[in-house]
Structures are given as structure tokens and as C-alpha cells.
């Protein structure tokens, strides 16, 4: 029984923490885009966290900004553009395709093409006639050893 009460306390305490940043939305779609955006936007202070996870002050402020922009009826793309115009492409976890970043997609492709080329090249370098003569020679040796 005591354990049960303790567990209930823990759960209540945790949910109290989680609602620390509680925001009210007019529609479930707005809430959904708030959740998506705070997941996709990166905290400029703690660079390996998104602003949903980070507790840095800048992340708090950015969440508040995202909330206000959504309340004003801005679309997801508009919010991302707003943040990019202040913090650069860096702020969004999905990098844009530019001459510099295109290598992120091209390098794996290049490696795959290279590997296939190597495999095909190797296969050709083994002539089948050579193999038959070698097999015949081996057969002969086996005969002799008997």
C-alpha cells in the first residue's frame, strides 16, 4: 500500500514537471504543429538537443516564440523560415540541399557505385578457360596419387 502511494506521488510529481511549459491551443492541429516544430528545431545553445528537450533559456524563449507564431496562424514553413532568418539553416534539423550539403546525399551513392564497380571488375578478371585446365591438372594429380 505504501509503495502504491509512493508511486502515485512520483507520477503526479512527474506530470507536474511536464506541464511546466503548458501552452493552450485553439485546435489539436495547432498543438500538433507545435510538437512537430519543437522537435525539428535545434537549440543554438545545447547543439545536440532540439528545443523541446533543451532547458536552456534560449530554448524556452524559442518555444514561446513558436507558440505565439502558431497562435497568429503561421504555418510550419513560415515558423521555420522565421527561425532560419535569425539563426541560419543550422537551426533546422533538416538541412537544405545546397552545393555544399549535396555531398551528404551524394557520398553514400558514390560509395555504392564504386563498390558495385569493384565487384563487377573482379568477377571479369577470372577467366573460365583457365579454371578448366587447372581442374584437369588437379584431377590428374589425384589420379597419380592413387
Amino acid at each position, binding site marked *: 500500500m505504501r509503495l502504491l502511494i509512493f508511486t502515485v506521488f512520483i507520477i503526479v510529481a512527474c506530470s507536474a514537471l511536464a506541464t511546466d511549459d503548458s501552452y493552450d491551443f485553439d485546435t489539436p492541429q495547432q498543438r500538433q504543429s507545435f510538437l512537430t516544430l519543437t522537435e525539428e528545431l535545434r537549440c*543554438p*545553445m545545447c547543439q545536440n538537443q532540439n528545443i523541446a528537450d533543451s532547458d536552456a*533559456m534560449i530554448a524556452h524563449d524559442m518555444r514561446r516564440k513558436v507558440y505565439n507564431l502558431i497562435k497568429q496562424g503561421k504555418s510550419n514553413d513560415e515558423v521555420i523560415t522565421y527561425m532560419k*532568418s*535569425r*539563426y541560419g539553416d543550422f537551426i533546422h534539423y533538416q538541412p537544405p540541399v545546397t552545393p555544399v550539403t549535396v555531398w551528404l546525399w551524394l557520398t553514400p551513392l558514390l560509395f555504392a557505385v564504386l563498390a558495385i564497380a569493384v565487384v563487377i571488375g573482379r568477377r571479369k578478371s577470372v577467366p573460365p578457360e583457365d579454371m578448366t585446365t587447372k581442374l584437369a591438372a588437379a584431377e590428374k594429380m589425384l589420379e597419380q596419387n592413387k
Partner: protein
Amino acid sequence: MKRLVIFGIPLVVFLLLVVFLFNGLFSDPRALDSQLKGQPVPAFELPDLMSPELTYTPEIFKGKVTLLNVWGVWCVTCAVELPYLTELAKQQNVNIVGLYFDQDLDPEFGTKTVSRVQQEVREITGRFGNPYQFHIFDVYRDTALDLGVTGAPEHFLIDHNGIIRMHHIGDINQRVWLNKVGPLYRQLREEMTRSGEAE
């Protein structure tokens, strides 16, 4: 020829990788390219921290070269750089303006009064030096966000036309001033005198 390919290609790939990673060793992940370089200071209308009845707009940056220092009393590094900034203000006559924002003054659940913030600022500047002409009080931290500020301390060099010319993340000490901020500051001062002569 075949030997050259077998040994040459991996060697070239390895050397490229070495150059790439070696550069990575000295790159600062927090040094972002500011989106505002070459842009005018974003519009704002904010009160003075010490006398809130005064209101500032980006017009205040016209006609002077300004070092805008984003800071707060809760930021330890800001206190550390205060003596050096004071020296710059006194000896080289650098026009330093503070963009003050408070951490505890939450716009939604704020409990702190402005007079408390003023008192804290007076205490800190009394202890470590006061390089500031005045403080712009960024009440809701909106202007900091518009400027692309990620934390404190951060600095903006603003020319006499109100254009942002440099965004420096981190403190200003002797090394940073001599190598990075100072040279551009002097250049901007020269630009200002030249445009003054041309008129």
C-alpha cells in the same frame, strides 16, 4: 600503373580526410554565421533599464560606432569581461551600450520587479566596472531573439549607419579585442570620419 591505383587512391582519400578532420579540430561549433551581418539592426522599441520612461529605437545607433553588449547579472562570463570593457571605454573611448535581459524575469510567470533588477545591475557594475553609456532593457527577450542571440555574453559591432558589421559570441578579452573586434572597430571609426569629411 595498377600499383599506383591501389596505393594512390587510398592515400589521396586518407590525406583529404586528414585535412578535413584537422580543420574540424579548430572549428568552434558555436561560431555560427550571423544572418544579420550587413543588415540594419532589427526594429525595436524598448525602455531604458535605469529610467524606464525613456524609449529607444534603432535610431540611437546612427552617427556613432557602437559595441552592443548583450548581458545580464546572472551571467558569470559577463562579470568577468566587465573590467576589460571598462578599460576599453575609458582608454579608447569605445561607445559601449548594454542590451540587458533578465533570466528570472519570465514574461509569463514573472515575479521579479524592475527595481530589483536595477539594484542587481548597480551592484555588479559597482563591483567590476561600468563601461556602459546606458542599458536597453529587452523585457521580453524578443530583440535578443531577433538578433540571433544564443546566450550571454554576445557582442555586436554596429557602424554609424546602424548596420550590424560583426556578431561575436562569447566574451571580449584582450586577445579577442586585439585579433578580432578591435581591428574592425578601428576600421568602422575610419569609415565614419571619412563619410563625415565627404559631406
